[in-house]
């Protein structure tokens, strides 16, 4: 990159009086005064959330309504601030998702500890925990700020993917593998 010598001109008389500068400044601020406002009025107007946003972590169900979490506890172990606590449980015999064998009995995320890093989502082999679009959580007590399993599923909803990994596994076990 070549060096461009700049000539520093002495200020002209008009510039030294500072008046033209003030006038052009007034013109600029006037332009800002009349143009539309740039802020959102928050509680009524919400910002558009970009894809890939990491908001409040939630648990999701698959389109059949089966809870995807199998309580492997990887997220609990990876969580840097130790915000997640899982009580593993078994799926009782005779239930529709019996073949999955395990599901969390209780799943708690302490939102006072959570740092929204998204490592739980990254580590989850079942794609069961997702950081979604909600960005503001409030509560009056510490207990209110701990999301339990029911609340996590309520926040998470259903993930519309069509993997049905466990159903395919079950059909492969019973009918043999038709592909390979």
């Amino acid at each position: 990159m070549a060096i461009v010598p700049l000539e520093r001109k002495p200020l002209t008389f008009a510039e030294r009086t500072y008046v033209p500068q003030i006038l052009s400044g007034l013109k600029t601020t006037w332009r800002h005064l009349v143009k539309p406002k740039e802020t959102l009025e928050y509680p009524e107007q919400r910002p558009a959330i970009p894809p890939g946003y990491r908001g409040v972590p939630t648990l999701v169900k698959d389109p059949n309504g089966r809870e995807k979490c199998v309580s492997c506890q990887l997220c609990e172990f990876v969580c840097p601030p130790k915000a997640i606590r899982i009580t593993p449980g078994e799926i009782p015999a005779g239930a529709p998702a019996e073949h999955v064998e395990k599901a969390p009995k209780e799943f708690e995320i302490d939102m006072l500890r959570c740092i929204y890093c998204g490592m739980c989502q990254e580590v989850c082999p079942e794609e069961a925990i997702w950081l979604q679009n909600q960005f503001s959580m409030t509560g009056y007590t510490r207990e209110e700020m701990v999301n339990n399993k029911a609340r996590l599923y309520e926040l998470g909803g259903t993930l519309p993917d069509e993997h049905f990994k466990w159903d395919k596994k079950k059909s492969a076990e019973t009918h043999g593998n038709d592909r390979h």
Partner: protein
Amino acid sequence: MIDFYLNLHPVVQGVLKGLAVIMVIFPIGGACSMAERKVSAWIQGRPGPNRAVVPWVSWIPVIGPFLQRLGIFHVMADGGKMLFKEDALPGHVNKFYFILAPIVAMIPALTTVTAVPFGAYLDTAGKVIPIALANVDIGLLAVFAVSSLGVYSLILAGWASNSKYPFLGGVRASAQLISYELSMTLSVIPLFLWVNEPGREATLGLGRVVEFQSQPGFLGGMWFVFIMPVSAFIFLTSLFAETNRQPFDMPESEADLVGGFHTEYGAFKWGLFFVAEYAHMVIGSTVFTLLFLGGWNPLPWVSLADLAGWLGQLSPLLAHPLAVGVISIGVFLVKVLALVFFFMWVRWTVPRFRYDQVMEIGWKKLLPLSIANLIFYAIAIAIIQK
């Protein structure tokens, strides 16, 4: 009703008139603080305060939400907050002067109104009579004398706070006042030289200046801002400095002096300083309007008497002295508020000068300029009026 008023003792009449004017100036001071927040917000691309609303106002369909958006009720919310906050009195201050300072700030700010005419009406003979608490001959001198007392409050506050930043703020306030008072006074002398033509009784009255700007003819109806632009410029600049407005915000100067003279103040005492500052600004704007912007004349070359004549042709009701008085006060207030808006507009445009720059502008630029301006107009007026 009018007879009852006129039969009252003159002192009672005076007190009533004074209270009426204070009842207008004080809320304008409060409203200006709101306007400042709104103007700053708009210039920064924000909507500004627009939440507070009184329930029974929000029930009015269109006007209610409009007033809410305008932030009218934040004035009350702000004032109420100031009033009910704990008024802490720091242990290290000189209590007597500390409490005295905000009171001293309010008194000159509200006293200057007495000598300022703010409207006019036509009597039965068609003569324009200014409306003022006291349309005295020393008009402008009284305004200058009393309004400069306002700086004592800053010095008192700075000194009584017994803390270094307020003290520096107070010192700056006094130095700044001395520097700019000089050029301010010098800038209006040519104007009064021109107004006090030979063969007339000499006066410094502000009513007379407006009367002079409402004569017939091209030069007669010209506002002083066109005849003496340099004077107007110097006066306006000094007015910014006198009222401690940005860019001459030295005594407060929150970037280098924490809060300047009011660092140790809080709650209602702090609020009083600000109402005083805004009242000062309003009075300064009225004086500028009277001197340079033709007072209550609606437009250059269109005097109030002309307007009243035209309105009289439309309907005799509009030519009634009361109607003309209200119209003149309205015209005057519009000009004053536009000027107050200009103050705010400049505040959010120009960054604060450094202290040495303020002194340099005052002593090395404005003072020589105002002296040169005075000499030029003195010679010119001597030649014209010979």
